[in-house]
C-alpha cells in the first residue's frame, strides 16, 4: 500500500496547493474538492471507511457546494479575481510563516519517537456499527450538543444571511 499512500498524498497536497493559489475562485473550489477526496482516500487507506464516506458526503456533497453557492451569491459568477498580488509584503510574510511552521513541525515530528510507530497490523476493524453504538451509548451528550450546535448554526446562518434583505424591504 506504499504506492497508494504516495499517490494519494501527492494528489492531496496538489489539491491543497492549487486550492489556495489558483486565480479563479471556482477552480480553487474544484481543487479543494480534489483535496477533500484525497483526504477521504487517506481515511479509506487508514481503514476508517465510515469516516471516508462521511468526508465525501459532508465535504464534497455539502461544504463544497456551500462554497460554490457563496461564490455565486457574491456576484462573482466567473470567479476571476484581480491581478495577482505576488511579491507583496503580505504574500511573503504569509508564505514565510507557513513555510517556517511546516519546517519546524516536520523537525518536531521527526525528532519524536512517535514518528517511527508502525501499524499494529491488527485485523480488528472499527466498523460503523461500533461507532454507532459508541455514539448513542457513552457519547450521547456530545452528540446532542453537536445536534444543537448544528441547529443553532443553521438558524444563525439563515439569520445572518437574511438580515439585510429584511432591512431593505
Amino acid at each position: 500500500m506504499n504506492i497508494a499512500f504516495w499517490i494519494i498524498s501527492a494528489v492531496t497536497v496538489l489539491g491543497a496547493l492549487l486550492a489556495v493559489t489558483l486565480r479563479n475562485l471556482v477552480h480553487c473550489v474544484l481543487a479543494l474538492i480534489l483535496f477533500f477526496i484525497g483526504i477521504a482516500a487517506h481515511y479509506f487507506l487508514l481503514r476508517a471507511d465510515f469516516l471516508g464516506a462521511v468526508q465525501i458526503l459532508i465535504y464534497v456533497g455539502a461544504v463544497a457546494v456551500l462554497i460554490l453557492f457563496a461564490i455565486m451569491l457574491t456576484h462573482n459568477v466567473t470567479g476571476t479575481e484581480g491581478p495577482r498580488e505576488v511579491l507583496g509584503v503580505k504574500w511573503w510574510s504569509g508564505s514565510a510563516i507557513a513555510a517556517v511552521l511546516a519546517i519546524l513541525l516536520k523537525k518536531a515530528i521527526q525528532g519524536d519517537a512517535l514518528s517511527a510507530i508502525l501499524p499494529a497490523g491488527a485485523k480488528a476493524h472499527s466498523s460503523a456499527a461500533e461507532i454507532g453504538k459508541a455514539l448513542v451509548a457513552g457519547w450521547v451528550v456530545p452528540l446532542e450538543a453537536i445536534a444543537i450546535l448544528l441547529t443553532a448554526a443553521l438558524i444563525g446562518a439563515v439569520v445572518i444571511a437574511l438580515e439585510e434583505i429584511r432591512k431593505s424591504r
Partner: protein
Amino acid sequence: MSIPLGHYLILAAILFAVGLAGALTRKNAIIVLMGIEVMFNSAILNLVAFWHYKHFAVPTAQLFAIFAIAIAAAESAIGLALVIAVYRHYQSVDVDKMKELKG
C-alpha cells in the same frame, strides 16, 4: 514496508502549512475560509492517523473526528453566511477592506 506514523503526521503538517499560507496570503474571504477548511482537515487527518496506529481497538478517535467534521461544517456555514452578509455591506469580499475595527 509499511508507512510509519510520521509520514502521516508530516503530510498533515504540510497540508496545515498550505492551508495557513492560503489563509494568510489571499485577499478573498472565501479562499481564506477554504484555507481554514484545509487546516481543519489536516488536523482531523492527524487524529485518524493516530487512531490507526495507536488506538485501533476503540472508535473514540473516529467519534472525535466526526464531531470535528460536524463542527467544521457548522463553522463553514456560519463563515459563508458572514461572508455573504459582509459582501452585502461592502460590496466586496476582500478581507483587506474589512477593517472597521482598526485601532
